[in-house]
């Protein structure tokens, strides 16, 4: 499993006007596409899953300190909306303040979890959600330490496909794969 490869910012990150929303619509389209791609790569490389609009500006991703340039909150929202449109973001709240950045779709996560369970002989046994997330056995997996709610969304998808069952056991959550 290729774990955290060194992340390199694309050239645009050092191009000062990249941080100003472009008035020309064609140029703006290029700009939003480049930002979308950058966000997905950055989140994937850093194994991040949740974006918080209020805190985004303090991330080095949106604020290039050496250039003294940062994206406005309005522009960040515009880019996030673009990500939502292409299926790479799901809002967690109606106010659109927090969202999951889906560098893998929920279905992809579901497939990945299921494959791991089958490959590791976990079918028909119960494992805890905690072990799936933080256990030794999953340390090399992309879903290791991922957002718990997002993982539950993926498990839910597996449940619908009758490939897993989520079980609640005195406050803990367990999963049985079939």
């Amino acid at each position, binding site marked *: 499993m290729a774990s955290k490869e060194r992340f390199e910012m694309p050239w645009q990150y050092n191009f000062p*006007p990249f941080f100003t929303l472009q*008035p020309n619509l064609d140029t703006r389209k290029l700009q939003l596409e480049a930002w979308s791609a950058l966000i997905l790569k950055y989140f994937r490389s850093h194994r991040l899953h949740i974006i918080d609009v209020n805190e985004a500006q303090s991330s080095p991703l949106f604020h290039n300190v050496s250039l003294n*340039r940062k994206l406005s909150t309005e522009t960040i929202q515009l880019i996030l909306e673009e990500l939502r449109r292409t299926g790479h973001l799901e809002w967690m709240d109606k106010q659109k303040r927090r969202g999951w950045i889906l560098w893998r779709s929920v279905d992809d996560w579901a497939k990945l979890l299921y494959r791991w369970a089958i490959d590791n002989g976990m079918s028909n046994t119960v494992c805890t959600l905690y072990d799936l997330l933080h256990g030794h056995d999953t340390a090399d997996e992309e879903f290791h330490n991922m957002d718990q709610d997002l993982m539950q969304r993926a498990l839910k998808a597996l449940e619908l496909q009758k490939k897993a069952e989520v079980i609640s056991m005195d406050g803990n959550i367990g999963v049985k794969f079939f």
Partner: protein
Amino acid sequence: MRKAGIGAIDKKRLMEARLKDHGEEIAAEQLKQLSTSLETFRVKLQEFAMKHKNEIRKDPEFRRQFQEMCASIGVDPLASSKGFWSDMLGIGDFYYELGVQIVEICMANNHKNGGIMPLEELFHRLVKSKGSTASQGLATDDVLRAIEKLKILGNGFSIIQLDRGRILIQSVPGELSLDQNQVIKAAQQNASITLLELKVKLGWQEDRSRKILNDMVAGGLAWIDTQTGASNSDILYWFPSLFNANINTL
């Protein structure tokens, strides 16, 4: 007196006519010699080309010098894809093929860079698309020659010379206006320029400067940057093609 005078004049005219004939004879003789030696040179050049066919094809420096030698006697081995030179060397095809690839690459990237690409970037993209073996021995000089040939097809392609030997390839149909060209040259050092700087550098009126800059933003050639710090009203106009030429990356 009068008769003798006329006789003298006639004699002088006769002399002049003879001298002229003689002079023409000499000139004709020289011309004949010159064209024989030119012919000899051409034959030698052909022999040379025949003998060094492989070096010409494979070694870019050799190829460049050969081209210069041809140019000095008015032979253009690329002028057409038919004829001795191209049949002999196949270099007509070589540049023809290169030209097609250049057009493809420029068209595919026009929407990104507004039709202006640094020569190095074009070269790297060419090498990438040809593969490392096929592009062995390809030089930027060849790319420039192929572009010169593309000009025959219309004004779609041109070469913009910047300072310190940097070169931009422009592939937007219809040339950059003279004004736009001047803006690019004025902005080349920082890859950006403000309205004020432009006015000072080129001595233009504000309206003219503003219009050209707005046109370049509208054409996708320039990006605006409003976070310049000092005074907010001073928008910086950035040129991605120049920026990439400066940092020399893809």
